[in-house]
């Protein structure tokens, strides 16, 4: 390999503007970042700093019922996503870029069995029959650590705990072996012991499937040991970025220092003194 690997995702001057009642409000102010193939990158920042809006911009997912406008460039595998048609974009979503959301309790369709919610994605992107998809679905459920996957596939979301649901959602997101997995605060809604399991699962799948990972969190503790590089977001801007260790050791920006100070135990757990 010669020097820096080619970018998988290359975002330049990304802006996101909501239009509500005619008054535009810009929530992402022209940010640029890169993710290399197979790389794990963290996005940290307090609530409302624009992390989710940025993540959804990469998927070109507008929140329901509001009108949003994106500007700048989002190049994914050399393709400009912002100029794709909606139909072309639908082939990218789930197939090449997949996403895991924050609240597993609300992210599964309550009236469909969990298996059917993986089947439909496989049928959509791989063109197999529902019957053939089910075989793969059961494998996937096993892969994310659901016991008796063949039986559990027919169960409905309300029969699963929060952690189990997040596993199902992860199974959904990796079902078509995407090149980039975006995880938007995948553990925020879960209790601490389960958080660690889910993070380990994500790391394992990332390794096994060779996916790049864009991990979003407001918790520096989650980032530690998970990613190679971090972008720190503050009010719609990227205020600092760099290698995880460098950033932890010597945060330059006052805001990053403040964020780190909010996780007092991080130094001692990472490098016992």
């Amino acid at each position, binding site marked *: 390999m010669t020097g820096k690997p080619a970018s998988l995702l290359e975002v330049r001057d990304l802006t996101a503007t909501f239009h509500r009642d005619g008054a535009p409000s810009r929530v992402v102010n022209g940010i640029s970042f890169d993710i290399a193939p197979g790389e794990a990158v963290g996005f940290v920042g307090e609530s409302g700093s624009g992390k989710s809006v940025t993540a959804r911009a990469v998927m070109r*997912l507008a929140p329901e019922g509001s009108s949003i406008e994106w500007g700048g460039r989002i190049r994914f595998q050399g393709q400009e996503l912002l100029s794709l048609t909606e139909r072309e974009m639908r082939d990218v979503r789930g197939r090449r870029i997949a996403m895991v959301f924050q609240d597993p309790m609300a992210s599964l369709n309550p009236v469909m069995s969990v298996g059917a919610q993986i089947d439909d994605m496989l049928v959509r992107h791989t063109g197999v029959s529902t019957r053939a998809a089910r075989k793969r679905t059961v494998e996937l459920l096993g892969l994310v650590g659901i016991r008796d996957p063949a039986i559990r596939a027919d169960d409905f979301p309300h029969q699963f705990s929060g952690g189990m649901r997040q596993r199902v959602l992860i199974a959904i997101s990796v079902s078509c072996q995407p090149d980039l997995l975006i995880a938007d605060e995948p553990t925020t809604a879960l209790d601490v012991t389960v958080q660690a399991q889910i993070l380990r699962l994500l790391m394992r799948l990332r390794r096994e499937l060779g996916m790049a990972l864009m991990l979003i969190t407001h918790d520096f503790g989650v980032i530690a040991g998970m990613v190679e590089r971090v972008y720190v977001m503050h009010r719609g801007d990227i205020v600092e970025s760099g290698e995880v260790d460098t950033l932890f050791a010597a945060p330059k920006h006052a805001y990053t220092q403040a964020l780190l100070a909010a996780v007092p135990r991080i130094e001692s757990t990472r490098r016992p003194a």
Partner: protein
Amino acid sequence: MLRMILVRLALTVPILFGVSIIAFGLMRALPGDFVLAAAGTTAVSDEVLAVTRRNLGLDRPIWEQYGIWLGNALAGDLGTSFATKKSVVSELLPRLAVTAELTLMAGLLAMLMGATTGLASARLRGRTDWVVRGLNSLLLAVPNFVVATLIVLLFGLYFPTIGIFNYVPFARDPLGNIGSLLLPALSLALTVSVTVSENTRAAVLEVSSQDYVMVARAKGLLARTILGNYLVKNALTPVITVTGLQLAALLGGSILIETIFTIPGMGQYLFDSVSRRDYPVIQAIVLVSSTIVLLMNVLVDIAYARVDARVSYD
């Protein structure tokens, strides 16, 4: 599930018992009785009136009348019409069939119109939403008998050749029968379709903002898959419930509509019987309609559980 159905059915028994008391009591609370109504304006001596009353059993204490009636009703005999001297059951059944058909047609129309407009309103928003909601408020403000009267007037004035008062029995000409019920069913359906439309709209809007719809979009699913399996399937539960509960409104509305369009159904029968104070008929109709409404509610609960796996009655 079976247990739930049985329990719900068992619960309808005390309710029906209460209904029977009210039906019986209300009739007798009305001023005048059958005999006076039948006599009309002709002068009839008190003796004649008394004899007629005795023949009909109206001279007995009211609780005794009730007891006899209830006993017979439990055995499936709803008595004899004072006016026609025929068995109420034999007179009611064919009329019930007509009303059932009208109500069913109106229910289907209401569901179809309500669901489409509600869905369009919620999904397309903007101008469509504006138009649908405007029409809904308008329709809600106009009672269905006014709509029916307007339809009758319009057709009478401009299309007198289309006989709107020509009810065609199903046995004679099934297609003609449905055709002859279409306008009445439409005027009956309008008000209920507004309720269905508003509820569909609210349900779809509510479901649209759920995280799982965003997840479905993030999966790259086709718009029609998301609409069918994610939006509609979830919005269905509240819509089924309101539609089912609107059945009572449809049954009630059919009385006026049948009278306006001169359809020989239960509604018109009830209307005539009330003016004649034909107690057995009225009581029978109240009891039968209540039973239908109660059974519909049980059906709604079953449909509810079938659509939504989270609903379990055990």
